[in-house]
């Protein structure tokens, strides 16, 4: 805390660099960035978290009456077998994107009622035979359908609302011509019970959540109506057959790559820091891989390690091999790992180097000259002065590289096809792309995020502890 205040105090002394007047201007200036990051970073981040731990349609709520206001009587999980007890049309709550709806139409009809006067009321589609349609198919008129079978009611009831539970306003004889004044589309609701708990809890549910089997008497819960927090996706990820491979390979690659990478980066940084002739040229060459996509680098190393590639050609012309050796196949997984390690070393060392070089540039020349005067050799200066002073830079580079290492993706696909050797990011992609399972894909992504955060935290603690040891 004290440090921070000091820092800003020096900023003020250094002076006019910063305006000290209180204004809203800086807030206006950062507002676009804040809004953008909130929209396209924070919000999707939150959504991603929810995807991994929240099941959008975990359970179907059964209510005591066929209405959206019904009281909840039971929750059934997806896939529960159902006995269908009754069905009834009901007003469509929303005509949004719901699929698998069973609907029925109701007509507002008017004609001569049993009482001899003109009456008007709602009747189900099944009670009206449409005989007159507008050009676009809208029914305009028809007759009341005769009811067949013994004991059938002679008259058809008309309801006050498009609902069988509403009040009967009139009755109308069969075959009476009627005009159709209005149409209502109703969703069918089913009264169901779970078939393994028959008679226990009976309730109503809209058709969109229920799949009816051919016998019309049984069915199953096809989709839930309410979401629930669940660890299901996460345990599905852990039980995924690729998971342990992916996780072990990611870790192995990191352990193989990071140490070598930091040694190489340190060497490169010392070379750049030595200010050679053509130093700017060397800098250009050393930083070339930094701007290259992991995919391109993967292909580049594929071109070297593939059967008729550079490596075999060189080895054969030198006389080490008699014929081409296959490096990238299921039988030669260590070679694939080796190729991936080389590719990642080639590609991602530059960024570490750049961070270390900018750390080196911050070391006062006087310190190094003083050490030289007292007889410290070059490697002694590197070991006892540069390295300790570079710790903060190395910490940043370590955090950055570890986070990137969890995301290794295209290099692995280019060198192994993504099946023989797999990593966590590849499994995220596979779940999304091949299995179309956004939730498990998000669980993988969440796992990567947690690993990244944990390792960042670990480095922050570890390197700080080290500086404390060094300073005592």
């Amino acid at each position, binding site marked *: 805390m004290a440090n921070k205040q000091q820092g800003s105090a020096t900023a003020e002394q250094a002076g006019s*660099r910063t305006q000290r007047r209180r204004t809203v201007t800086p807030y206006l200036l*950062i507002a676009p960035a804040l809004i953008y990051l909130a929209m396209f970073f924070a919000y999707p*981040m939150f*959504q991603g978290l929810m995807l991994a731990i929240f099941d959008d349609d975990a359970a179907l709520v059964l209510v005591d009456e066929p209405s959206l206001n019904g009281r909840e009587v039971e929750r059934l999980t997806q896939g529960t077998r159902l006995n269908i007890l009754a069905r009834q049309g009901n007003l469509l709550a929303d005509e949004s994107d719901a699929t698998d709806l069973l609907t029925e139409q109701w007509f507002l009809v008017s004609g001569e009622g049993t009482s001899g006067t003109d009456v008007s009321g709602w009747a189900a589609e099944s009670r009206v035979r449409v005989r007159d349609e507008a050009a676009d198919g809208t029914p305009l008129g028809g007759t009341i359908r005769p009811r067949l079978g013994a004991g059938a009611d002679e008259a058809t009831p008309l309801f006050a609302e498009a609902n069988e539970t509403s009040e009967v306003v009139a009755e109308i004889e069969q075959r009476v011509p009627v005009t159709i004044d209005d149409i209502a589309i109703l969703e069918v609701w089913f009264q169901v019970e779970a078939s393994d708990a028959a008679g226990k809890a009976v309730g109503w549910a809209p058709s969109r959540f229920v799949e009816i089997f051919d016998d019309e008497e049984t069915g199953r819960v096809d989709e839930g109506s309410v979401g629930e927090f669940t660890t299901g996706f996460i345990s599905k990820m852990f039980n995924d057959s690729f998971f342990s491979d992916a996780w072990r390979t990611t870790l192995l690659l990191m352990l193989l790559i990071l140490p070598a990478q930091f040694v190489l980066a340190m060497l490169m940084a010392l070379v750049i820091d030595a200010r050679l002739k053509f130093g700017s040229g060397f800098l250009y060459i050393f930083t070339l891989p930094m701007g290259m*996509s992991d995919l391109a680098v993967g292909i580049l190393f594929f071109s070297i390690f593939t059967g008729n590639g550079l490596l075999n050609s060189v080895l054969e012309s030198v006389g080490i091999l008699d014929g081409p050796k296959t490096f990238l196949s299921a039988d030669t997984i260590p070679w694939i790992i080796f190729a991936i390690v080389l590719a990642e070393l080639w590609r991602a060392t530059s960024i570490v180097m750049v961070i270390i070089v900018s750390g080196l*540039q911050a070391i006062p020349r006087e310190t190094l000259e003083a050490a030289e005067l007292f007889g410290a050799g070059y490697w002694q200066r590197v070991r006892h002065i540069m390295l300790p002073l570079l710790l903060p830079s190395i910490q940043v580079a370590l955090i950055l590289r570890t986070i990137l290492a969890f995301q290794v993706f295209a290099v692995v696909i280019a060198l192994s096809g993504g099946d023989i050797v797999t990593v966590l990011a590849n499994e995220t992609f596979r779940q999304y*792309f091949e299995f179309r399972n956004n939730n498990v894909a998000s669980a993988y*992504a969440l796992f990567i995020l947690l690993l990244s955060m944990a390792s*960042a935290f670990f480095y922050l603690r570890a390197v700080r502890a080290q500086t404390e040891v060094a300073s005592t």
Partner: protein
Amino acid sequence: MTATDLPPLDSPEVASLHRNMRRRNLRGRLFTYGAAIVIALWILVPIFFVFSMAFTTEDTVRSYPKNFLPLIPFSTETMSFFLQSEGVLRGLVNSLIVAVVTLVLSTVIAVPAGYAIARYLFPGRDLFRLAVLAVRAFPIVVLSIPLAVLFLRVGLFDSVLSLALMHTALALPTTILVVSSVFASVPYELEEAGQVFGATPLQSFRYIVTPLVLPGIAASGLFTFVLSWNEVFAASVLTLENRTLPALVLTSLSNSSDAFQFAGGFFLMVPSIIFMFFIRRYLFNMWGQVSK
């Protein structure tokens, strides 16, 4: 210890000390050059090889063993085969559009924010910087899936625009930090001096600050361009028909010829080979700033 205790400067001890130091220096220099050349070769040889595979005949790509250095016959056959393959031209156009939109969008949003960080001390400044740094460190993978779901819901899925929005979110933090370090390198006194001589704040920004920061902002823009051009994970997740070039190459890896892959791989490297030349000096600016 006083000066008289030291051996005189022309004494044999001092001379031999100097000789030793020079010799050690010379050996050190030679060693450094050797290391520099070895590392340079380690980076250049693979690039050269994939370059020669990208510009040769398809027969050579298939041939074995190859006369590796430097005798691979030059031809534009593989490259033109790649460029004429189905979808490549469209992918190239998509990639360019995404990269340019990302560049423009992230620069337009980042410049004011970077200026605010560099020029104003305001409550919340450190918090904002920290938040930006934290965003920078987040894994891309985590963001792609929910964004895909989100874009699917609002009907923006599989469009070049949706990918540009995502890339902007990725590039924005770095761009803000770099731009702020560029602004910080221009002393505020210069702006003030302009105002002393009668320029309005806007004029002194336009005529004094802008020319000084333009190269730095251009460098960060180029970096953003390269970032977007290279990005393959989000591109593969967020697009289906409207593939960008990297996404196209990635998804056709399993069913394309070596010639296609090598030419495509090299083609993807070209912008970075060109742009790194211009931005290499600014790299330390960028990462020095970020690591503070």
